[in-house]
């Protein structure tokens, strides 16, 4: 098992309801999640807005510290490790962010953005590795000299992917990475990611609010609703026979093209 998540709980202080004196009340965002991510799996995490899916992702990467339960990554309990303890193993789990504009430092060239994490983990042959990463995501090597604002949305998201895979991680978390893209870029990025998973033998967790995107990519799916898992299983099965009412609701929200409709 790559990830073992047991009874994961996370609450954050609600500053909007903070009284003048004293501490703010806490909101339970994750209310006891238990699931496994097997090595080589492509796990879809789906849920509506506010279901806690991004928080779950950030907890798995330990950008947030859980308030309860445990997260085990490849046999190491990382639930409460300090940043200093986590740093040597950070290259093993990487993340691709939702907004490709704000996740790339606007004042660094693409080459520097990809090489930065490599340098931190003491890797050699930086230019070769950057070129390889650009090749893998289908960007010309000359893009290494460009700034993020000189790229299109889809190209920026490829840079985000290149940065994550350049470290050759075991696990990648993709947080709503296609929701900011137009439909054709979405398809390209999804195909690319699907190909990379096979080629590099990655384990991937793919967060999305869109079940049709999950269906294309993921072999297992986890449905989150208000911080709890309402359904978990094989993606195909989930689409065939959804068990939870919330899953059926999400499935019905997928717009299906109607070939018989006329414009008249």
């Amino acid at each position, binding site marked *: 098992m790559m990830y073992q998540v047991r009874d994961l709980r996370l609450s954050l202080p609600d500053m909007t309801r903070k009284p003048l004196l004293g501490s703010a009340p806490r909101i339970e965002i994750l209310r006891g999640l238990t699931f496994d991510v097997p090595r080589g799996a492509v796990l879809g995490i789906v849920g509506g807005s506010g279901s806690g899916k991004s928080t779950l992702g*950030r907890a798995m*990467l330990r*950008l947030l510290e859980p308030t309860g339960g445990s997260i085990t990554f490849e046999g190491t309990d990382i639930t409460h490790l300090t*940043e200093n303890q*986590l*740093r*040597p193993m*950070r*290259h093993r789990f*990487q*993340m691709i*962010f*939702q*907004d490709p504009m*704000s*996740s*790339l*430092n*606007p*004042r*660094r060239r693409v080459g520097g953005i990809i090489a*930065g*994490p490599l340098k*931190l*983990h003491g890797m050699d042959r930086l230019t070769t590795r950057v070129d390889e990463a650009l090749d893998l995501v*289908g*960007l*010309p090597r*000359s*893009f290494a000299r*460009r*700034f993020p*604002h*000189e790229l299109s949305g889809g*190209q920026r998201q490829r840079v985000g992917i290149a*940065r994550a895979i350049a*470290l050759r991680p075991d696990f990648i978390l993709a947080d709503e990475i296609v929701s900011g893209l137009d439909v054709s870029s979405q398809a390209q990025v999804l195909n690319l990611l699907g190909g990379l998973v096979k080629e590099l033998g990655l384990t991937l967790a793919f967060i999305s609010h869109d079940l049709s995107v999950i269906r294309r990519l993921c072999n297992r799916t986890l449905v989150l609703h208000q911080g709890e898992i309402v359904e978990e299983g094989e993606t195909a099965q989930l689409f065939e026979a959804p068990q939870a009412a919330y899953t059926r609701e999400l499935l019905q929200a997928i717009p299906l093209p109607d070939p018989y409709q006329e414009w008249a």
Partner: protein
Amino acid sequence: MRDARGEVRRPIGLRLWLSGGWLTLLVLGALLAPWVAPKDPLMQDLFLGRMPPFWVAGTEPGYWLGTDSLGRDVLSRILYGTRLALIVALVAGTLTCLIGATLGLIAGYYRGWPDRIISRFVDIWMAFPPVLFAILLIAVLGPGLVSIIIAIVVIDWTRFARVVRAEAMSQGAMDYVASAQVAGRTRFGTMLTEILPNVLPTIVALLTLEMGIAVIVEAILSFVNLSISTDSPTWGGMIAEGRTSVHQAWWVLVFPLITLFLTVLSFSQLGEGLKDRFDPVLR
């Protein structure tokens, strides 16, 4: 995918040319003052008092911008005054920037208790009227170049701290900061390598502005006779002297005033121009 976009060179704007040109002229004037100044700036000649500038009838050759009431050459005095003005602008501006920007960066990025302490200090500081505060400081420290610089730094660091803090805060919320953490960069390293480059254009713009302000503060202090000793010519001192005889000899007041005005304007425009030229992120 095609990569048609080459390196686009942006032309150096008129703004940068004019402000850079004027400041270069000032630096040269300050450095070469002993050679280019037509007269000794301290030499008095009461027979040549209040001579008008060269294009007005009845002047003595060699006194291009006229003389003051004691017969001292206005152009030479402006040139020598440039030295003090530029030293104050560079040293005080840079020190203010270093102290203010560092504190602002720490407060804005780390938040929490460092922010609470620094922000409270800024709030308290800003309640003091700045010019009175400066005059008070000089009165305590005693006049002199070092005192002027200290006074400017002590008054103006809050300007940097406030602006840089706000900027660092908004940058700190960006995903590229989280991304640096995912990559395993330390908090301190992230501040220096991710946040600072994004706050730097703001800092440079503020720095040049601050240099202009430093020149003004020095002039104000000279005006109220709290700058360095009256022996060395300063722009503010000249303006103060010129004020008393503005009806008889307007040039004693006007020329240092124009120099001061152009210098302050150039400093602020230089910042904007540099930003246009060197900031990779096109706005």
